[in-house]
């Protein structure tokens, strides 16, 4: 690995600056799909712009992005298609405005999901993070807005967080391009399979629900032995999610 020390990136010795090319809207022939998910107003579109060089609308207003946007970048000769999703509070509701994000994370089968969270409001953001981790095990947490967290005297133990969640955590300030190189490097390692995550699974589920979920997961896994998110499907079936039921019928999970 050629390591040029760049001023913007002194801390991350692995990042290969020359290997990065922002591709803008060109997303043909990509090798990997990367999704950007997270609560509203956490800086997803800002991260997206930093990675692709595009000018997606950003704004200090929850719900700024309403349809998904695509862009691309190339890193170490691999091409990535990046998908900016509207912010959501949860993947479990059925409201239409959250549909785009929900469907893409579940059915778009991204190779890596970048979960952008607000470091100042970690607890509330974890609601969505934990749900996404039930669905996919190829995820990275982008702990955005670190500059504000610092100003507000919020300190986060990144290593413990990463251990608890079972996925890599990258602190960042997307607006000032801080943490972006590390994020790219981490994305590439997860995409290529160099880094393997072991994500957190929701624990404190009441007994009666856990029992029902177990019964269902067993049945689902019997039918689809290679499925990794049978528990999530069980959750959704118990909720009566029409989309999931249809997808199951059509075998879209295999």
């Amino acid at each position, binding site marked *: 690995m050629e390591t040029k020390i760049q001023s913007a990136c002194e801390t991350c010795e692995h990042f290969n600056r020359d290997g990065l090319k922002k591709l803008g809207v060109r997303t043909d022939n990509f090798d990997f799909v990367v999704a950007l998910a997270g609560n509203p107003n956490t800086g997803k579109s800002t991260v997206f712009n930093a990675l692709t060089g595009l000018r997606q609308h950003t704004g200090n207003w929850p719900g700024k992005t309403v349809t998904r946007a695509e862009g691309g970048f190339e890193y170490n000769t691999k091409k990535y298609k990046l998908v900016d999703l509207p912010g959501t509070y949860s993947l479990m*509701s*059925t409201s239409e405005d959250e549909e785009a994000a929900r469907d893409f994370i579940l059915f778009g089968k991204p190779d890596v999901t970048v979960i952008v969270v607000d470091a*100042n*409001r970690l607890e*509330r953001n974890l609601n969505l993070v934990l749900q996404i981790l039930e669905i996919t095990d190829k995820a990275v947490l982008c702990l955005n807005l670190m500059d504000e967290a610092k100003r507000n005297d919020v300190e986060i133990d990144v290593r413990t967080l990463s251990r608890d969640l079972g996925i890599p955590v990258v602190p960042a300030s997307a607006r000032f391009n801080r943490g972006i190189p590390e994020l790219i490097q981490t994305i590439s390692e997860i995409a290529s399979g160099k880094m393997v995550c072991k994500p957190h699974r929701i624990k404190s589920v009441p007994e009666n629900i856990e029992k029902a979920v177990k019964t269902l997961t067993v049945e689902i896994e019997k039918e689809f032995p290679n499925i990794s998110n049978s528990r999530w499907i069980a959750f959704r079936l118990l*909720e009566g999610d029409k989309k999931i039921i249809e997808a199951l019928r059509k075998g879209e999970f295999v």
Partner: protein
Amino acid sequence: MHTYNPISALLVFFSIGALLYFLFRPSKGWYWILKNQLTSNEKTIIEDVLKQLYHFENSNNKVDMKTLVHMLSFSNKKIVDAINIMTVNNLIYFESDILKLTEKGREYALRIVRVHRLWERYLAEKTGFHKIEWHDRAESMEHRLNHDEVEELSRHLGHPKFDPHGDPIPTKTGKMAQVKGVELPLLQVGAMGRITHIEDEPEVIYKQILAENIHIGSLIKVVENNVTRIVFLSEGEEFKLAPIVAANLTVAPLEKEILVEDNVTRLSSLTENETAKIIGISRESRGESRRRLLDLGFVKGAQVSIDLVNPLGEPNAYLIKGTSIALRNDQAAKILIKKD
């Protein structure tokens, strides 16, 4: 332009306006009345008769022609015609004066009941109609849906087993779940339970229950029970009902003793500088709006306080899990809290 003068122009204008008003004003407009009359055809009458008979037979009451005519708001002749058709089609038969459902008639009636209750459920979960309107809307919808539409509806709702009053919804094959529980007056003082059913007939009593903050699925605790009244606690409020009203509530006693918080109030009663812990969300809030509140972090155990008071009184902004979220008062009134 010879005949023009402003007064006659205005007169023409206002008469057209008045005409349109009388034609199309909500529910009483001539257009609607006419349309109703045209659509309340044979099918509707037959289905209404079947449903009445079904309900009467279920409560072990007997019906003759006279009561039937009395019950339904169609003309005598239309009902008699319908009854004739129904006997010919083997949906009902007479036992001396008494009208009875045949097996086939019963099946048909169950189908109507199924549509009615499914539609009420749909109105409750997926629309913004007030609960007072559910029944009437379902009443007209039950004649309109065909078989496939009903199945689609049921799937859309996740094959529910109960309607929003707690009445069981018959399945496709006519099976029905049992309502768990006993009538409220049968509970002892100190007993706890969950409301599983609210009877919607007779209407006078039902309206009285609707006026109170009593909701299906909420926990109650009986604190007084005698011949004059029954007093119970639910979602932090005390309710006093006459036994005859209370008998319209079915309550499933709790098997396990669970801790019921006392001093429960509503988020809407929180004032500035107070903090509180969230106990839960009232059962009144259902469907999408309930889910949204939960997603926003209004979950049991969360700490909440007022962040900003609105200059117009509403909505206030609440600080919940580090973020300021504004809710209107009617929403805040559905969040149960205990002040610190």
